[in-house]
Every structure is written in structure tokens, then in C-alpha cells.
């Protein structure tokens, strides 16, 4: 009955294809024998419509930030509810998952952080860790429950002397993915820098060596294969966000 989870053909559509399709939709919908006129105006009209939609998406970011509560916790589930197998999802296919050499790996820190020395994996693993069984909700609609283990991100930010009054935390990933989040979500008690999935070392397809897990945000906001973390007041955007997905994307 259900399609294979995590097949994200929709996401592969570029905005250009989308624009062309939308123009077709508008033409089909509005054509009252004025098709020739429309072809002439379509481009400027398109830009106007897109501007309004982008502005509304920005307004929705503000509304979501207000709805977000620093204390409200996402539901946690019993082990029996864990989804197995947990779906793979990325902007590329599962065969293209990158292989990271854990021995050479170092997590880089940047921006408004006092102690920017890079962290090796053994150093990170030595930090106190917690586990959570939470639900991952994809922007496509499907959801899946998994178990992640790692360091509370707020503890980590404090430990490295991050300026937590800054607006954004940005992530650059080894698979050329990127994303950014608001500081309030970064400090949420369920936001974890995770090294384990289902009690095992995070496998490559789920983001080895680490994934930032936030049950209060949609799946694509949870970066995998993190290379560097930076704190900033300048809006960093992100891979999907720059293509038109809503930036805050809170749950």
C-alpha cells in the first residue's frame, strides 16, 4: 500500500523545473484565450508571486519561533515502537553515501565560539552522553521512530564557550550538505550531538561520525556527517533552505 519510505523524487526537482511546471499550471488554469499575453508576462508575474511566497515563508519562520517552547519536549517512545528498518534519506541515493575515516576525522568549530580547537572522535566520545527514542518527521510526510545516543548539544556549546546569545548555529557537512538552526532549538534539552544509532556506532548511511538530532525539527534540518559547527548572527541558510524549503521547519 505504501511507497518505499525515503524515496524523495520530489526533492530532486530543481526550482527551475518547478517554475516551468507552475507556469504551465497557471497557463492551464487561467488561459481564457489570452495565452500569448501570458507568455509575455509570465516571467515577471512569476517573480512577483515567488517574492510573496518567500516573504510568507519568512513570516512563518517568525511565527514558528514564537510557537516554539524551550521547555516543551517532543514525545519519547518505548523500544517496541522503533521503526525497523529505519528509512534512509538524503539528497543523494544510498549507494552514494560517503565513507568517513574516523581515525583522521576532526570536528571543526568556528564563528562566535571561544575555544575553537578541533575535536577528535575519542575526545567527543569521552563526553557524558544521553539516549532518546524519538520520532523523525520528514518534510515529505512520513515519520519513523529511532534511538539516538550522544552529547546534549547545549552542554557541548557551553563547554566550548559558544556565544549562546547569537542567533544561529550553522553546520557544514562532509557530504556537501549544509543547514542552520535557531539558537533556541540548539539549546533545547532534546537536541543531541549523536554518535550512536540503535545502540551501535552511527552507520555511514545514518551520518557517521555524527548527526545532530532534533526531534523538534523536520528531518532535513538534522545534519549528518558534520564537518564543522559555527555560531553566527548572519543568516547562514542551507542546502534545502536555499532552494525554497522553509528555514525554521519546526515540529
Amino acid at each position, binding site marked *: 500500500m505504501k511507497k518505499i519510505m525515503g524515496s524523495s523524487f520530489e526533492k530532486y526537482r530543481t526550482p527551475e523545473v518547478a517554475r516551468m511546471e507552475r507556469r504551465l499550471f497557471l497557463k492551464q488554469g487561467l488561459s481564457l484565450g489570452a495565452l500569448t499575453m501570458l507568455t509575455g508576462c509570465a516571467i515577471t508575474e512569476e517573480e512577483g508571486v515567488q517574492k510573496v511566497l518567500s516573504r510568507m515563508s519568512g513570516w512563518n519562520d517568525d511565527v514558528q519561533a514564537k510557537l516554539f517552547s524551550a521547555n*516543551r519536549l517532543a514525545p519519547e517512545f518505548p523500544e517496541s515502537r522503533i521503526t525497523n528498518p529505519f528509512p534512509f534519506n538524503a539528497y543523494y541515493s544510498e549507494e552514494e553515501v560517503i565513507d568517513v575515516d574516523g581515525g583522521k576525522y576532526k570536528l571543526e568549530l568556528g564563528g562566535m565560539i571561544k575555544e575553537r580547537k578541533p575535536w577528535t572522535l575519542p575526545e567527543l566520545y569521552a563526553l557524558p552522553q544521553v539516549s532518546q527514542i524519538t*520520532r523523525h518527521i520528514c*518534510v515529505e510526510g512520513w515519520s519513523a521512530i529511532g534511538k539516538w545516543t550522544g552529547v546534549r548539544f547545549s552542554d557541548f556549546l557551553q563547554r566550548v564557550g559558544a556565544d549562546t546569545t547569537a542567533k544561529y548555529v550553522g553546520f557544514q557537512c562532509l557530504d556537501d550538505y549544509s543547514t542552520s538552526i535557531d539558537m533556541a532549538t540548539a539549546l533545547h534539552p532534546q537536541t543531541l550531538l549523536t554518535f550512536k544509532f540503535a545502540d551501535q556506532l552511527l552507520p555511514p548511511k545514518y551520518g557517521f561520525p555524527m548527526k545532530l538530532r532534533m526531534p523538534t525539527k523536520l528531518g532535513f534540518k538534522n545534519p549528518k556527517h558534520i564537518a564543522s559547527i559555527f555560531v553566527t548572527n548572519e543568516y547562514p541558510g542551507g542546502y534545502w533552505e536555499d532552494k525554497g524549503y522553509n528555514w525554521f521547519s519546526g515540529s
Partner: protein
Amino acid sequence: MAPEMTKVHPLIVRIAHWLNALAVLIMISSGWRIYNSDPLFDFSFPDQVTLGGWLAGALQWHFAAMWLFVLNGIVYVSYGILSGHFRRKLLPISPLAILRDVASALRGKLAHDDLSVYNAAQRAAYLALILLLIVLVLTGLVLWKPVQFYWYGQFMGDYEGARFLHFFAMAGVGFIVVVHVAMVALVPRTFPSMFTGRIRRSA
């Protein structure tokens, strides 16, 4: 001599009707595109009848038009309750009267002497439409913010339950809209009245 005209729709109802028609058209056509990215059932909507071009575009339309839909809905429902418009136009209503009027409508014998008074089938359809649209807002809130509104998502089977309810409510709205448009086509003099607010007393 000019035909005798009677007032049927107050200005606020006409404005709310057309804003709602636009908002619902955007919500449904973009919603179909969102549905297509992870179909609940064994079918997808043809891309040509969806809005947004791709998932991100559809989401932008959906979450922009929701403000028009909800704000317009709040104005309309508040007016309907406070002014007595709903009570005058939609009540009383009984299951027996609905069955009777639906049956005579199906036989093509539904009386339309006074178009300022709704028959029981119309009352039922308009009431059901208002309720379904409210259900769409309530389930939509859980889909949009399943964590922040988790507590009341429990009344509708949490996030996954809300997805199905949201879909079924949409299907109900779609059905009523199709019947509604078909009835307008059958009794065309009702159409201009949704702009002018007036209608000839009889055909």
C-alpha cells in the same frame, strides 16, 4: 417592469465566500502536491492539477494560503454566529428533512420557489462544509506542529492519525464543492447573486 428582487447574501458573506473559494482552491491543489511526495494510498494526483511545481513550492503555497484561509474563516464564522446568520439560514435542521430533500433533489424535483431560504439538503451541505473546514484546520495544526500541539494531537491519533483525517476531510470538502458547483450550473440564476447579493424571486 423590473423583476422583483430579493436580498439573499450580505456583503460580508459574499466577500468571505470568494476569498474562501480562492484559499480552498490553493490549499487543495498545493495539498495534492504535498500528498504526492508520500502518498497515503495507492494513488497520486496528476501533477498537472497540482500547485507549486515541486514539494517546496507546494509547501510555500500551502503555508501562505493557510493564513488567508484561517483569518477569513474566523471572520466568517464569528459573523455567522454573532449576527444570527447561521441560526437564520442553517437552522433548524433535521435528519428526516435532509433525507427528504436529498431524495427529491436526486429526482430533480427540489423546489426553488424562494432562493433566500435554504432547503434541508443545502443546510446540511453548508453545515458539513463549515465543520469539515474546521476539521482541516485542527488536523492541519497537528501536522504543522506535531510537537508543540502534541497534547491535542492525541485526540486524533497523533501525527499519523491527523494525516488520514486531514486527507478524508479534504475529500469531503472536494465532494461538497463538486455537488455545489453542479447545483449552481443547474440553477444558474443563483450564480450572479453571489456577486450582487440579490436574486429574482422566481424563475
